[in-house]
């Protein structure tokens, strides 16, 4: 009996280790601790109509997301970014790749100087079907953006279905975003 008492620390520790292992497995599947849920999930995108980043090109508005007259709508991404944001630069190649695969990404340049935003897109390439400026950050607040970059998956009905806080990593893309786009596009 006394001997069994000396086993208690080992048993407790193994329990803890097992649970760590489960957590690591969950993280591997994309459920990271910094994955923040959003109250906006399954709600329609907030009303907004933002001016274009580049004069003369289309801006981004709530009515562009979801079904419009004549077509049943398309799954789209809304990506908040800025020229001053370093993680946005690391995310940029992934957006370019997504755009190359035909994914419709709408960009919102957050609290940025128009010239800076334009210069970055001219230098690194433009993955966006349309890109607008949110100089006041008002629309970002309505979406519930914590900080750039942040990306939202919008379904064919114009509802927010997923929120990515921080840059999209290749794992996020493989494990969450691409499967979700495929599922929603069915």
């Amino acid at each position: 009996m006394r001997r069994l008492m000396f086993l208690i620390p080992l048993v407790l520790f193994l329990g803890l280790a097992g649970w760590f292992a489960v957590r690591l497995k969950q993280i591997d599947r994309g459920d990271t601790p910094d994955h923040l849920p959003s109250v906006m999930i399954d709600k329609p995108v907030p009303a907004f109509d933002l001016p274009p980043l580049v004069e003369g090109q289309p801006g981004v508005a709530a009515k562009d997301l979801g079904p419009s007259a004549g077509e049943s709508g398309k799954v789209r991404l809304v990506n908040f970014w800025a020229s001053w944001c370093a993680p946005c630069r690391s995310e940029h190649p992934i957006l370019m790749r997504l755009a190359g695969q035909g994914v419709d990404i709408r960009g919102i340049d957050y609290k940025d100087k128009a010239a800076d935003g334009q210069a970055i897109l001219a230098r690194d390439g433009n993955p966006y079907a349309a890109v607008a400026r949110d100089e006041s950050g008002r629309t970002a607040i309505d979406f519930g953006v914590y900080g750039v970059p942040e990306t939202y998956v919008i379904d064919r009905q114009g509802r927010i279905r997923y929120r990515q806080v921080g840059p999209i990593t290749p794992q996020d893309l493989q494990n969450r975003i691409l499967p979700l786009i495929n599922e929603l596009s069915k």
Partner: protein
Amino acid sequence: MIPELGHYALVLALVVALVQSVIPLWGAARRDPAMMEVGRTAAYCQFVALALAFGALTYAHVVSDFSVLNVVENSHTDKPMLYKVAGVWGNHEGSLVLWVFILALFGAMVAAFGRNLPASLRARVLAVQGMIGVGFLWFMVATSNPFTRVDPAPLNGHDLNPLLQDPGLAFHPPFLYLGYVGFSLCFSFAAGALLEGRVDAAWARWVRPWALIAWSSLTLGIAMGSWWSYYTLGWGGWWFWDPVENASLMPWLAGTALLHSAIVVEKRDTLKSWTILLAIVTFTLSLMGTFLVRSGVLTSVHAFASDPARGVFILALLVVATGGGLLLYALRAPILKAGGLFAPISREGGLVLNNLLLSTACATVFLGTLYPLFMDAVGGGKISIGPPFFNATFVPLMVPVVAVMAMGPLLSWKRADLAGVLGRLKIAALVGVVAALAALWLAGTKPVLAVLALGLAGWAVMGAVVDVADRIRLFRMPLGDSLSRARHLPRGAWGTAIAHAGLGVAVAGMVGTSAWTTEAIQVLHIGQAVDVAGYSFRLDSVAEAPGPNYTARRAVLTVTHQGDFVATLAPEQRFYPVTRMTTTGAAIHTNFFSDLYAVVGEPAPDGTGYNTRFYRHPLVPWIWVGSILMMTGGLASLSDRRLRVGVPLKRAAPRAAATVPPAPAE
């Protein structure tokens, strides 16, 4: 070429560590002196190999060799030399190199200074040390090679995170690692003793120096980290209960408990299996810190770029090391014989209480750190546990620790006279009351608890003074005799008193700044002034100032007190163009009793003024003064002749100089 040599040295160290972990253990089982001796040779070889690897990586950073990925990702040619060197350990791979280098350093120190250890124990300790080395070296070679090349080499690097480009933080990791890794030796000694099946006073004497080195370094490392957050985060916070901070606090608490319980093993030959368990737990908590920081299991501002694949590896390491240690404990600890009995009120009793409180405090921090994880795993949603939880649980546990700490050293072994001890502490009680009254007079009644806590701090500091005064019979015999006694007082006794006083001083600092900070946040125009706690801060100018790898916007402030000049403060905002990050450099003027703290931030939206924040933090410098005292106490204890590393112990001879009357040494 040099990076390849470094990589080769790493692999070589891995192979040597394998030898070190198998042959001496085998030799100890067969009682074969030659095989046991392999442990020492291997420990030296491993040290040399890892010194080479560490040197190679440092060289690559110093000369900015951008064909090495690690240098590209963490360095830049414009970076000042100090941070080129500090950049070596400012990243995941490099910090691991430092980790194993320190591990090998400790192994080599056991090999060199452990001549007085029984050969079989030394062989077993070195073997366990070798196993830890195998784990970490394998981890590095398999997942985190610091010497990976890039081809073609870029022209310049990405620079080190500007927050890490700071003198306080540059040397924070090495001290933390000295602490974490130092506890690995306590673990190895515990495992060695379990394998031997013997824990006695001699064992406790051999473990104590290593525990003291580790504890003192960890104390300094934590203090440096907290000092850094105090002056860089821009509002004077010095502890945030962030998971990574907690990861360093937990081994500290467990290590503090270990230091104290080892005294009981040494003097009274009891509490053995508990002390062994503490040694295992302390190192486990150090390893777990490594796991939590690098696996991405927890979110923290300090976390390294995390990677679940690495997490799995570290978890496996943790399971093998701790699981193995605890299994050994379950099998062998029951055979350890309990030693002397003691009454509840006795030195032993006091140390048991200390251990109970410290381990409960450690468990509290552990729960608070992991609870959010647990809730998330069972679907309880994302929650965060902040300072309120820790203030409500940890702080009440520390109150009795500090209160009893003053009495502990005055209690006698086996059975003590509590009333007599309290009688001797009358002066300490008086000082406590005076400290509380002084706080009341200077700061007003609110908050009552802080006033009481300050009284407690005064009691603790004076208690340590009384302890020394008592031992040297101050004022009870001629001063010259007292001084001579003071000279001959064992360093361990000095260490205890200094460290205990240090904790009291640090507590006063923590209480003072938590309870009585004054702040003023406003937009100031050039030439305007604002009053903070009787001090007037005037914004004189704001100008651009170039730095080596940043540009700064430096403000100049004049501080006056009732019209008298006090100080000129020059806070700055630094912008690092390579990483496009801004850091805040607060300006601090200290007079030892309080800090005046100023931050000048962004220009206000109207474009004419600046956002400014001024604080007066009473007693805050005492936190670090106290920490340094604690570390000094640890080092003083370490220099005690009884434990001095490398001094052969003549066990037959009575302890230290025979001229000293048999005052209790701790």
